[in-house]
């Protein structure tokens, strides 16, 4: 079969791929998006309004089936009877890790990728984050600063629709916000008490989320059914499936091909550029080529790097783009699991109405204005307060008529959780490589992952427990229960760093515009490019970097520099 030819190729249709498709097509390029997985039809696949009694296991999932086919994916809480289908079959998608170093790789292969099930928290980075590596001598310096990305944050926020409460923090810059949902009465009081007690340092603010609180860009506002990971037929949270890909489609220049598993990038030594990609048809297993002037790898941090590792040539024997020796290295996630929960003894005469998919955020307060003696960087808390209703029943003593009446007619106290997400320092030895013995269901060499948390992350985890407990004590909360989950990397689902950006081709894979140093018409704008992780959820930064990189690519193409 002759190669298909387009102006641009985008590999992957998730958060980053969707943005690449939108920007490339809107700037006039005929673009093909190659998605490894199946198409998703919201009318059929989205199940956010299905009630538990309509499902065989009332939402608990077909446990035996999940154990058999999703032994890795099951470790993500969203893999249940509703949303399990948005996560991969682990038997078809193998990878390996050393027995004593588990890394749980949570993956979604479908049109929309993980933007269908993502957490939707969206926080800008600041120069506290971009300058940290160089100031502390960690890894390499980011080649960009906040001023380089700030206009692109604004650009993607305007389109995506981000709700948030402006707080004027230098280290967590305000974005272009839609009005936020209010904090509830219990959270407002928790905020006030913490502001008083900690001199403004520990701020409980409204979660900043890519969920519409008013109609925006042709998409209706959220109706608070509460389970975004099951889909959203009203398109009220941002996903590539219902926002960027439709925008790309209306240009008439988008070709979206599902079941297209990209095997490798084709490198042309004569031009020192990539000519296109080799693709395995997901159904027929036949390989074909797609050629283009520019290629955006947006297949997720580990998949994009895997494609380059599988693209070795005689000039690049360990993988295309790996002249620095950093390709596949510096794999990072965030560290989660420290925090606390407690009962708030207030407002039993008040309730909330509406199921918020996210509630509060506590921006990083460690190593912002003061220096902590035990660790560098910091963490934020996600959480919120609600009244449990009948869900509290199995924790309560009692049975019988009055017990039933209490579960039906009363709500229980306000209960609040603070759960920490911290920065992970990049380390060269944390890496992915090709497993010499393992291939996936499409015959493509699979990955071996070696990744562990370091000492700094463990100290952050310990500190999360301490400070969350302190915050509840400061509020006068009751039944304070520390939380310390010992989680393996991967489970925050924020993989980053496998093809880091940098200032020097000898120590980085990508330049300041996400171009592969060794093949400048190949761009990587997903998590692979991240030189450090900060503690903020990363997706909005991928979006901004993608839009910025496309702008650069098209400028170069117009100058005939690509």
């Amino acid at each position, binding site marked *: 079969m002759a190669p298909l030819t387009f102006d641009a190729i985008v590999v992957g249709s998730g958060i980053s791929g969707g943005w690449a498709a939108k920007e490339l097509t809107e700037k006039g390029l005929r673009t093909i998006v190659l998605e490894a997985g199946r198409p998703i039809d919201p009318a059929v696949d989205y199940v956010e309004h299905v009630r538990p009694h309509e499902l065989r296991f009332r939402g608990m999932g077909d446990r035996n089936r999940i154990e058999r086919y999703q032994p890795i994916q099951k470790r993500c809480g969203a893999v249940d009877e509703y949303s399990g289908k948005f996560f991969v079959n682990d038997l078809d998608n193998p990878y390996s890790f050393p027995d004593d170093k588990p890394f749980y790789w949570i993956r979604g292969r479908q049109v929309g990728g993980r933007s269908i099930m993502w957490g939707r928290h969206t926080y800008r980075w600041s120069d506290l984050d971009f300058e940290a590596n160089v100031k502390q001598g960690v890894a390499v310096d980011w080649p960009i600063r906040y001023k380089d990305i700030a206009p692109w944050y604004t650009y993607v926020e305007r389109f995506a629709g981000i709700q948030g409460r402006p707080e004027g923090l230098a280290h967590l810059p305000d974005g272009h916000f839609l009005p936020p949902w209010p904090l509830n009465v219990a959270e407002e009081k928790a905020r006030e008490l913490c502001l008083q007690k900690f001199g403004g340092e520990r701020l409980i603010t409204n979660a900043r989320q890519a969920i519409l609180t008013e109609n925006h860009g042709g998409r209706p506002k959220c109706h608070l059914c509460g389970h975004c990971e099951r889909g959203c037929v009203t398109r009220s949270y941002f996903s590539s499936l219902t926002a960027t890909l439709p925008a790309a489609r209306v240009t008439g220049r988008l070709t979206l091909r*599902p079941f297209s598993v990209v095997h490798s990038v084709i490198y042309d030594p004569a031009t020192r550029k990539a000519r296109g990609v080799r693709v395995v048809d997901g*159904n027929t297993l036949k390989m074909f080529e797609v050629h283009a002037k520019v290629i955006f790898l947006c297949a997720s941090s580990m998949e994009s790097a895997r494609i380059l590792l599988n693209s070795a040539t005689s000039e690049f024997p360990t993988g295309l783009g790996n002249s620095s020796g950093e390709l596949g290295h510096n794999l990072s996630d965030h560290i989660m699991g420290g925090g606390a929960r407690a009962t708030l003894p207030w407002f039993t005469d008040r*309730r909330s109405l509406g199921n918020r998919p996210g509630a509060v955020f506590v921006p990083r307060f460690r190593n912002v204005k003061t220096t902590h003696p035990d660790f560098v960087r910091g963490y934020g808390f996600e959480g919120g307060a609600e009244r449990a209703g009948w869900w509290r029943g199995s924790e309560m003593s009692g049975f019988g008529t009055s017990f039933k009446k209490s579960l039906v007619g009363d709500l229980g106290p306000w209960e609040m959780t603070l759960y920490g997400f911290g920065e992970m320092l990049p380390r060269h030895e944390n890496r992915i490589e090709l497993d010499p013995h393992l291939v996936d269901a499409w015959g493509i060499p699979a990955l071996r992952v070696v990744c562990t948390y370091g000492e700094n992350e463990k100290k952050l985890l310990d500190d999360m427990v301490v400070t969350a407990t302190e915050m509840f004590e400061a509020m006068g909360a009751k039944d304070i229960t520390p939380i310390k989950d010992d989680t393996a990397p991967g489970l925050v689902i924020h993989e980053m760093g496998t093809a880091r950006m940098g200032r020097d081709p000898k120590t980085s894979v990508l330049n300041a515009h996400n171009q592969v140093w060794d093949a400048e018409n190949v761009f990587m704008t997903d998590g692979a490019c991240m030189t450090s992780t900060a503690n903020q959820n990363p997706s909005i930064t991928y979006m901004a970097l993608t839009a910025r990189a496309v702008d650069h690519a098209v400028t170069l193409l117009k100058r005939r520099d690509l």
Partner: protein
Amino acid sequence: MQRREVVRFLGAALALPFLPRSAEAAIEAGEQLHLRLGGGEVPFRTLNGAQQALVTDIAGMIIPETDTPGATSVQVPQFIDLILSEWASDDEKTLFLAGLADIDARASALASNSVQPQSQARALRFVDLTLAQKTELLTALDAARADKSGAGLAFGRLKTLTIYGYFTSKPAQMDILKTRMYFDGYKGNVPFTPAS
């Protein structure tokens, strides 16, 4: 490649179902199909008659019939049997059924300690107790829900499954809780008085 060819090529790809690649996944797809074609549910595949009676009795005591339906009439025992048959691991099932036997053993001991005449040939079971005795035993088991085995564990599991099975049932969702799915914005400060 001509444009028409491209369209046909892409169209063909879209029209095909996504076939599982591994043998295991293909078998699973077949099993799922058979399950659907198999039709109706066979009730009580794990619990025997005596166990059904015990589970039904206790579930009904946890969430009794009042002015609204209780656990029995929304078929919580059938839900528990489904979970035991298709969801629980073998170890969990064994532990739970042993715990049910332990509940009957505790009931038998409680009955023999009382002054009741023991005319029956077989040992007394939980279902044979008076309401007061049942309440006394369940109160003791309620305090032992954290036990790792035996009657306390079985009651803890029964309680959790009864509450979950009851409140996720259609009558509870639609008629009793009247669970709303759509809201016009989030309201975080709404007056509330517990139902009297």
